[in-house]
């Protein structure tokens, strides 16, 4: 068996760097308060920016009069749509639709029509923040309010209000067809049919959006910003009408992203204001502005019908998905594609029919959020599994065991799994870790346990032909420098590269300096999204380091009179494998290479496997490079008199491929699980006719230290991932199945199932009354 499964407490050889729980390279500076975030930079003479935002969710802009604002002392610029060289840019998504030529529109400032409450209408730059704040209030906008549409089901009707300029609100429609759905249900003994709803979720990173822009000595528009995607520099250049190499984005250490800093936030506004004023400009969002204006996790309505035979074999799954894209397209087609491909879960089902649509409304737009369309469907398909298990008198684990996909099985889209799928062991281990059900001391408090399994991709869709690049070079003192354009969100993206380079080149993590996230100075490494950086940039860094290593070993071989294959690099020395006492210091090898003119650096490009675009009418083909497999287990205590849910235990068991840094992987699993817990129990962005009713952390509740249970992590290492050293990415997967595990635990405790998140005490009580 090629898959090696090893448990948490495996031993580590002292010579290695990879696989050890070293403190991350960024930890010290953060602990001592030395790390600078986007809002911590200041420049002499800088101006302060402010965005005027629409008071209406749907309205026609009849006129904008900036004169009063312009006359205010200290105001240096007021800009509206007409002042922007290219106010609209178009992203083409390929043949993803049934409603004519589909294109995603990115509009910098509202023009003629306002689509959501909080949409940018005008920009101001002023000498102080107070003046900028006052100036936006003096801009006179004459609106004609329009009806708007706020419900995705309503928005689909032919007579519905049109959010944009198109003749339909439908953004796109995907289908998956496998087998024959009628036959599938005809051969099922038990059929479960339910409708599930999930709300919008806010990323609630603790650092609000911020940036500082200036024009450098060479006339390059430079933007220092907390972003997951420095490669937006091209889009910003297009908005300004500049060549790409006249715009530079420098990413800062990010105070959390989770997908919310994937789309452009402050950077275009900053570029425009600094271009217009020729002065440095700073722009920072307030928390309220952040919650109202950035994209959310998509709300979904999901109709599921699942059939199985009497002996617990899944026969048919039919799903109808409808997501609320909000006011602009942004990443909705991609998110929906992830939902469509993932809608059947990690199960082998012969007959599948999936219909998925996303539709524009006048709500705040939806876009990327950790899990990217998969947490929604996972909540539905894992709830369905427990409902089926109940009807079949099987345990939830047993029903899953009989249906989990294995390596070599075909997924819903006909893709045959090429890598190890860690089922049923992640489920068995997660459930076992909960132990015996806790005893309740209070008769009104019922205890329940539940599980949720998922397969979630890491790496971007294979038809996007993804690449990453990394530079690895030796310094003359034997130190190592890595340059790689990764954006570090706080997930350890930069640190994992230092650990990989250190392992390959036989130095300690402290010997490696990593420079990240600068479109002018670091090789472009792609986005920090889609759980792709360890996989993509980890591979690129490993490749670059291997090339440098090869040259070092060749030269050391001459010095030690050995074949390079007989040598290894450890502890800043090149030594004989057979006779470690015979060695030469890395520093001396570097010097010898330098004298001989051997290049001591290498830039490598890693190309992800690429495939043709899938057929969206039948939904067949390979969409993702690989998946992470895992299971969450939860134990809850539900008070049937108050509806209050206490989370007693949480377990996350994932095949991480290889834990490059076990402490960092645990951090991802713990944090992702708790974000999933927030999704299940607390978080709900409430919009009323497009107005955000939860614009602060006193209305929009995320888990505090008092709400959570300590997450027990169980790391399995199959070493069968496609990342460096066999690693898989788990940043997003770690969130996906937490919510259904909790929902299933509540059902186990009190016998009632809640079909719409979050599971508030109110819903529990109402459901109890109905019983």
């Amino acid at each position: 068996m090629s898959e090696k499964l090893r448990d948490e407490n495996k031993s580590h050889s002292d010579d290695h760097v990879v696989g050890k729980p070293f403190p991350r390279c960024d930890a010290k500076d953060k602990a001592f308060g030395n790390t600078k975030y986007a809002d911590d930079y200041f420049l002499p003479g800088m101006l302060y920016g402010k965005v005027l935002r629409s008071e209406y969710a749907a309205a026609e802009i009849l006129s904008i009069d900036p004169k009063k604002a312009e006359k205010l002392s200290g105001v240096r610029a007021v800009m509206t749509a007409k002042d922007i060289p290219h106010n609209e840019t178009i992203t083409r998504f390929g043949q993803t639709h049934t409603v004519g030529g589909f294109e995603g529109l990115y509009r910098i400032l509202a023009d003629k029509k306002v689509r959501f409450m909080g949409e940018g209408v005008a920009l101001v730059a002023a000498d102080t923040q107070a003046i900028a704040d006052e100036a936006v209030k003096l801009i006179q906008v004459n609106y004609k309010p329009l009806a708007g549409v706020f419900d995705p089901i309503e928005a689909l009707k032919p007579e519905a209000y049109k959010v944009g300029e198109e003749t339909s609100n439908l953004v796109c429609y995907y289908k998956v067809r496998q087998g024959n759905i009628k036959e599938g249900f005809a051969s099922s003994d038990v059929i479960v049919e339910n409708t599930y709803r999930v709300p919008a979720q806010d990323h609630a990173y603790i650092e609000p959006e911020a940036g500082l822009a200036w024009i450098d000595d060479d006339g390059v528009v430079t933007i220092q910003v907390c972003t997951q995607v420095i490669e937006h520099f091209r889009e910003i250049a297009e908005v300004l009408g500049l060549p790409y190499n006249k715009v530079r984005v420098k990413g800062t250490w990010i105070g959390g992203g989770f997908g919310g800093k994937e789309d452009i936030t402050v950077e275009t506004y900053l570029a425009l204001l600094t271009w217009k004023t020729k002065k440095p400009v700073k722009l920072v969002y307030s928390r309220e502005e952040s919650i109202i204006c950035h994209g959310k996790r998509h709300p979904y309505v999901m109709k599921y019908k699942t059939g199985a035979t009497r002996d617990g074999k899944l026969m048919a799954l039919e799903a109808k998905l409808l997501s609320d894209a909000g006011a602009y397209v942004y990443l909705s087609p991609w998110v929906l594609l992830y939902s469509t491909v993932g809608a059947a879960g990690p199960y082998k089902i012969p007959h599948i029919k999936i219909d998925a649509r996303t539709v524009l409304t006048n709500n705040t737009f939806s876009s990327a959020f950790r899990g990217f369309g998969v947490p929604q469907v996972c909540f539905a398909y894992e709830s369905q599994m427990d409902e089926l298990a109940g009807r079949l008198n099987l345990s939830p684990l047993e029903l899953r065991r009989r249906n989990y996909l294995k390596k070599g099985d075909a997924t819903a889209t006909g893709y045959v799994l090429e890598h190890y799928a860690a089922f049923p062991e992640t489920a068995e281990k997660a459930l076992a870790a909960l132990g015996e059900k806790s005893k309740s001391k209070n008769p009104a408090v019922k205890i329940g346990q539940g599980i949720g399994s998922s397969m979630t991709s890491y790496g971007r869709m294979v038809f996007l032909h993804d690449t990453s690049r990394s530079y690895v070079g030796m310094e003359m003192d034997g130190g190592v420098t890595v340059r790689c354009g990764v954006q570090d969100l706080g997930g350890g993206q930069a640190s994992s590269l230092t650990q990989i380079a250190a392992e390959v080149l036989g130095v300690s993590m402290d010997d490696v300096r990593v420079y990240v996230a600068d479109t002018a100075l670091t090789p472009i490494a792609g986005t920090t999204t889609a759980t792709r950086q360890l996989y993509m940039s980890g591979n690129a860094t490993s490749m670059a380091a291997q090339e440098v290593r090869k040259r070092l070993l060749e030269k050391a071989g001459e010095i030690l009179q050995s074949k390079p294959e007989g040598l290894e690099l450890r502890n800043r020395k090149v030594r004989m494998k057979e006779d470690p006492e015979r060695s030469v210091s890395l520093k001396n090898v570097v010097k010898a290479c330098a004298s001989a003119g051997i290049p001591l650096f290498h830039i490598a490009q890693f190309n992800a496997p690429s495939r043709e675009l899938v057929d969206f009418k039948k939904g067949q083909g390979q969409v993702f490079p690989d998946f992470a497999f895992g299971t969450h287990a939860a134990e809850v205590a539900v008070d049937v008199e108050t509806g209050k849910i206490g989370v007693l235990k949480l377990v996350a068991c994932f095949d991480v491929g290889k834990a490059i840094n076990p402490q960092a992987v645990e951090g991802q699993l713990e944090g992702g699980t708790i974000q999933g817990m927030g999704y299940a129990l607390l978080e709900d962005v409430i919009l009323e006719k497009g107005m955000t009713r939860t614009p602060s952390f006193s209305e929009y509740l995320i888990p505090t230290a008092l709400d959570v249970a300590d997450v027990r992590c169980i790391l399995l290492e199959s070493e069968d991932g496609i990342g460096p050293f066999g690693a898989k990415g788990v940043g997003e997967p770690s969130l996906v199945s937490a919510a259904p595990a909790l929902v299933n635990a509540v059902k186990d405790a009190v016998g009632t199932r809640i079909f719409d998140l979050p599971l508030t005490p109110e819903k529990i009580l109402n459901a109890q009354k109905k019983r």
Partner: protein
Amino acid sequence: MKTYSIHLLLNGNPVRVDVAAQETLLDTLRNKLWATEVKNGCGKGDCGCCAVLLDGKAVNSCLTLAVQADGKDVTTLKGLGNEENPHPLQESFIQNGAIQCGFCTPGMIISAKSLLDENPKPSREQIREAISGNLCRCTGYKKIIEAISDAAPKGQLSD
């Protein structure tokens, strides 16, 4: 607009600064004294990342007027220690992997310091209570709680 000249000890260093009547201590620290290790996450006292010690007591600096700090000791994360002379909490946060994005860390460590000053041997539940006003979106709190436990004098720890 009336301004006041206030005097305070910032991490042990005497400073004099002119502030407006309604100016928050957070704005003064970040924009006038360049103490950018004090973070602004919400401006409303909901997230706790702007916490500082005011005469040894943890306060949200966004809810404190600068004039209220006149004549007082203000301690930020940087006042607790540095790489040469780290505070046990700083070392413990590093070793336990309690820091991910790091944006909540300055306030989190300040709240933990305030707790340990009052209660050197807190239970896990008391730690949870003490940091319940400090939001963290990355870690799920487990490693933070472990870091605070580890930094407390040894030989206690119960739930």
